[in-house]
């Protein structure tokens, strides 16, 4: 009688096949205690992670950013927009000249899914093209759409004939 020789070789199975096995015998029994431990440890890890994120955000806020020159007065015309990066190179911002002497600046990342918002001169508001989230060009407040938070505003200061970005004013600072 020709017979097969025991188990087929399982050592070269890919990881996913080991974890999702079609063999009933490989399905692991999860005891109540084991499941409880999993819940407790996962919750603890989630808690620790949140504390870490909170601490990091505190540290981040405490770090002071030096004033950064972003534009000369009159460099952009009324109703025009200039992009700059503040405080880091990966945080694009918009400088908007709404009136002759009225400059505002906002972060360019939509608070919904980080699409780049654009300034609409006709309606005087910041519009996110992705999901039609609109922000006030005065305060950055959400006018409509899915964004959960207002746009972060950049505090500006005028020194002689130059504009400096001083700080990012998030929701909590205002």
């Amino acid at each position: 009688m020709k017979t097969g020789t025991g188990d087929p070789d399982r050592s070269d199975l890919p990881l996913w096949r080991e974890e999702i096995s079609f063999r009933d015998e490989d399905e692991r029994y999860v005891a109540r205690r084991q499941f409880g431990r999993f819940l407790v440890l996962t919750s603890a890890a989630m808690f620790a992670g949140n504390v870490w994120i909170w601490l990091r955000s505190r540290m981040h806020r405490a770090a002071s950013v030096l004033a950064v020159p972003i534009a000369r007065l009159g460099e952009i015309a009324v109703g025009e927009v200039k992009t700059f990066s503040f405080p880091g190179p990966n945080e694009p911002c918009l400088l908007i000249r709404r009136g002759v002497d009225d400059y505002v600046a906002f972060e360019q990342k939509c608070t919904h899914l980080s699409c780049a918002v654009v300034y609409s001169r006709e309606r005087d508001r910041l519009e996110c093209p992705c999901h039609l989230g609109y922000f006030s060009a005065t305060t950055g407040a959400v006018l409509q759409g899915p964004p959960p938070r207002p746009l972060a505003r950049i505090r500006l200061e005028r020194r002689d004939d130059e504009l400096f970005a001083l700080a990012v004013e998030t929701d909590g600072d205002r």
Partner: protein
Amino acid sequence: MSGLAFFVDPSRCIGCRSCENACAECETHRGVPMIHVDSIDRAQSIATTPMVCMHCENPTCAQVCPADAIKQNDEGVVQTSLKPRCIACSNCVLACPFGVPKMLVAFEQMMKCDMCYDRTSAGKRPMCATVCPSQALAFVDPDVIASERRDVPTNVFRFGAQEVRTKVFMMLPPDADGLVVDVVDYMWEAR
């Protein structure tokens, strides 16, 4: 499983389809036989062969199932797809080298022979083996087969590069040396 094994002998099949009808009577899949009686070459011969699931040690149908719906139990029986999981994609139907799984469109589920697990796990013989008049389907002790039959059982099959070991045995002529099927021979492109 009580030391008995399943032996399929195509040369004994008389094409009576008793097995199909006995299988279809089972209340776990009422009216739908899980065993198929196939013509070998209908234009040339009246020979038929019963096809039960061979219950591979490393079942190709379960390997290709994207929904993890086909399970092999501790005794090596590959069971019919789990209804809540089966997505009726027919991957198993295409993959099985023996052509066993059938996708039942009306149920949107693949159903296949599970060697009458409700019966064999309780020490009874599968329904088809109990009714087969020529014992082309035999569920007996391997010693009985060795002493009563001239043919030799094998459970190693080769399909091209794939070697398949099964729980069910196929009876081969005594001089046959394993069953080697080069799949390419059966493709129309090769002709």
